């Protein structure tokens, strides 16, 4: 890097840190800047260091989970074995992700806490004004002091030492994990179904369209993709509800419990994703069909069907896989709109309710869940890429 570039980027960095300090207060700003530096630092860890740090963090994470369930001794044993195995056998890429995940979750909690505290309102402000004494007592009871930094301390201690996401501040008597635990399978089953529908139909449409550009199937695909991406899900959902439930009476309007309850929310969730997947698969197919190796395959006299299935498909689904990683995290954590529309008790509602109610524990719990899922699914997407593309495999 040139000297002037160095000076300029240092200046920019200093400005960012200064800006953080001005916006959040000196202590908070410096802490956040330091945390971010630490997180980005994990990218520069050498192979051996990344291995070691990743294995230690992995062990720590497992220990945290295991100890809350089965005590310190057994927890240690449960955590140690995978950590050692991971250090020995897991690809560096995986361990580097873990090394990145843990500090970034801490920074996430810190940043979220600071932002939450800066939002007007408080979890203890009801419509009927309570006295300062009542509020002070509630703050003490729930461990929510008036300072964001102090709350961060209490929360991290709860997370690390007690292995809990803390009590919900609005849904009395329940911990955040007891709210998310029953909601997660609901969102996951709905999300997976939607994801399967979206991927299968999107891929089929996209690949077919990519193979026959500017023909009827292509126009159909682009049409579906455009409609799927631009129609908001409450319109799709409401239309399905009017036609299938109120009109034909074949499905229940809303609710959760029976298999019939799965259909409409899954279709509603899947529709926009079908659009995205189809567009990506179409572009991927168009590109890959122009590649030299496809021409070679054709020149070798392979049948068109084999050219497509054996050679083109791989290239075509590659952008879809990159998209599906983060998209899966989104779809598996539910959608507020679809859940409220079909009265589905999933995770998506908590993202919105937590924020609206200033329920700090729920806000942090959902943020952690989402961040962990995004990181994990990105890792999965990376691994699938490596499997699909020999050029990437070498980097593992």
């Amino acid at each position, binding site marked *: 890097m040139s000297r002037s570039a160095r000076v300029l980027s240092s200046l920019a960095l200093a400005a960012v840190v200064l800006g953080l300090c001005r916006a959040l207060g000196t202590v908070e700003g410096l802490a956040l800047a330091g945390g971010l530096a630490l997180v980005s630092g994990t990218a520069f860890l050498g192979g051996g260091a990344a291995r070691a740090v990743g294995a230690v963090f992995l062990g720590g994470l497992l220990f945290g989970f295991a100890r809350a369930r089965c005590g310190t001794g057994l927890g240690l044993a449960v955590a140690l074995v995978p950590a050692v195995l991971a250090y020995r056998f897991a690809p560096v890429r995986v361990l580097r992700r873990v090394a990145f995940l843990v500090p970034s979750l801490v920074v996430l909690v810190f940043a979220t806490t600071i932002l939450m505290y800066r939002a007007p309102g408080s979890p203890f*402000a009801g419509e*009927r004004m309570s006295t300062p004494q009542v509020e002070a007592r509630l703050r003490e009871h729930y461990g929510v002091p008036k300072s964001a930094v102090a709350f961060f301390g209490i929360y991290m201690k709860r997370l690390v030492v007690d292995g809990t996401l803390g009590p919900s501040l609005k849904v009395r008597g329940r911990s955040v994990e007891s709210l998310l635990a029953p909601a997660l399978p609901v969102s996951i*089953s709905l999300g997976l179904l939607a994801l399967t529908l979206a991927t299968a139909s999107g891929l089929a449409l996209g690949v077919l369209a990519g193979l026959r550009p500017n023909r009827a199937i292509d126009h159909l695909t682009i049409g579906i993709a455009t409609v799927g991406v631009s129609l908001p899900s409450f319109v799709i959902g409401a239309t399905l509800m009017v036609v299938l439930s*109120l009109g034909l009476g074949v499905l229940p*309007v809303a*609710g959760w419990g*029976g298999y019939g309850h799965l259909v409409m929310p899954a279709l509603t969730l899947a529709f926009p994703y079908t659009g995205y997947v189809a567009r990506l698969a179409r572009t991927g197919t168009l590109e890959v069909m122009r590649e030299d190796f496809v021409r070679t395959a054709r020149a070798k006299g392979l049948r068109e069907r084999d050219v497509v299935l054996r050679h083109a498909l791989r290239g075509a689904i590659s952008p879809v896989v990159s998209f599906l990683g983060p998209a899966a995290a989104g779809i598996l954590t539910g959608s507020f709109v679809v859940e409220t529309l079909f*009265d589905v008790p999933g995770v998506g509602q908590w993202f919105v309710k937590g924020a609206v*109610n200033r329920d700090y524990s729920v806000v942090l719990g959902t943020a952690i869940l989402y961040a962990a899922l995004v990181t994990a699914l990105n890792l999965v997407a990376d691994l699938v890429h490596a499997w699909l593309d020999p050029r990437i495999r070498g980097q593992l």
Partner: protein
Amino acid sequence: MDRTLLGIVASLGGALALVGFTFRSTVDGPADFRFANQTEVSSLDPQLLVGQPESRIAEAIFEGLTRYDPKTLSPAPAMAERWEVSPDGKRYTFHIRQAEWTDGHPVTAGDFVYSWKRLLDPATASEYAYLLFSLRGAEAFNSFDGLAEDLEGPIPRALAAFQKAHAGGADAKSFQALARKIHLSDALRRATAPALQNLLGRSTGSIEKDELDAFVAALAPEARRLREAAVHAKAHFGVDEGVFARDARTLEVDLAAPTPYFLSLTAYHTTMPSPRWVVEAPGRRDDWFLPEHIVTNGPFRLAKWIVNDHIRLERNEKYWGHADVALRTIDALSLENETTALNLYLSGALDWLPEQYPKDLASDIRKRPDFYGERGMVVYFYRLNTTRPPFDDRRVRLAVNLAVNRTLIVRDVLGLGQTEATTFVPPGMTGYTAPETAISYDVPRARALLAEAGYPDGRGFPSIGILYNTSAQHKQIAEEVASELRKNLGIEARAYNQEWQSFQTTIRALDYDMSRMGWIGDYADPNTFLDMWLTGGGNNQTGWSSPLYDRLLHTAADVSELETGDVSWLDSLAHPDAVRKSLDETRSATDPAVKLAARARTRMLLLGEAERVLVHDELPILPVYFYVVSGLVSPKVKGFYPRLVFEDGHTTPNLMDIHPLRDIRMEETR
């Protein structure tokens, strides 16, 4: 088949298999009665819960000393099989019936003493503790220590700084601003010392140095007095004062002043008993009301609670009156989306849909035969910030009140038969007559008043903001009001919104000109609407204060004081003769029942005078309309009374919108 295709098919197949693995089909048989219970229930702790969805469930699974008769909402025997009231109306003796909790424990008088003490215990931090402040010693038990703490620490510190800054005396305005910031009126709400009273009620003019010194000096004795009262209350409340058990089946309640609505309070969830052995069991934090732990004494028991989905209630076969309970099972659905709720009702999946339908369909839904809509005990109004221009001027406050065409809003925006509010207390309270009001739709007068206040044709009038919490309907109303003010007064008015939490913060900081609010009465008495406007009251939030208003409400809380004390101040009322006449009747009455009735009349007259101060003299508010409580209920549902039906055949609206699940029947069980 090729490896890639195989991979794709296999992973999709795997995902589907996982769906099968994570999805559990959990369909119960359909319940006898299913209703939309609005938002998710956040607590079922009778002493702590707040909100209508919560109270609907709690009042079905717990039972208080009395219960609401479904036809008349008058108190009927419940856990108390009978009761006696002393002639002066201050002592109630309840005889507890032979009844059991769901775990077989007998229900005792001690359960009520425990629960009421729990409600009032400052450590419980219940928002509804004040509902039992009419019990002797209850307020001292609940809040005097906390108030004393404030008077010993933060308040003198803040006042010392104020004294230093205003060494030569201060103006009353800046003193009031400080008072609001440090919740002075709240801390001194029971103070009687003249040195304290003197400054608290002063909102104009100046304050001498001596007065301020005397004020500060009077704080310590007041704190001491509170401490002593708190010590006394802690030793006696629940033992031989306020509420106590004479024996296992006899409960004595000892009121500081006669409370005409007391037997309605004992039917309210806040006073229902909680099982001490469950609440305080080791390992319980505040999760004792979850289905796996809860023990109840009401007509139903909590069978299942799936968060964000539904609550299933089953008939409690141990309940003393289980033979009267027709429903075996009830599903209470938590629903966020109004359209979904309506669709569920229309598809027959719900039997009762209270309130939760898209309001823009109101005019169509209103025509359905299964629709009901009756006047409710809720008022929609705007607060006017009296601490800063332009609304610190009473003429301006009256002018805006006169410039809003409420009929237009009620008819064109709302359309459910809501009524224009020109007073504050919703109509229909037994024994209460609304006072004269200055509010009407009178644009010429409004313009004249505005000119008188120095803004002819709105010239020079500052631009004002009309704040509402985010909602489509509040927006429509606020924009209508803004356009009326622009059109009729020629002033610049702008409607703007904030989401609920930010909205609350803004209101509390008095950082607004006009802000929207709806107030639901806690009990059927004008007091629940009027006491929010007391000086420094937690829900006042307009900065408005009137010594006469405060005095009227405090006197109404115990009118017997008026029979012996000073009555000369009554001359400042609009109709002192009516109050005097009623007082004379009280004094001359020999029959205790007649005396009580006369006292109740005097009380209502005083409350009426107080409301007159609000809507005729001072106008710190702009009332808009009184709500209509509405919904859809299947014709199969019986024992459901949107209009109350009395013995003599006359009917009145079900103001509180209470429909005891205990008494609901289905014409044919599904």
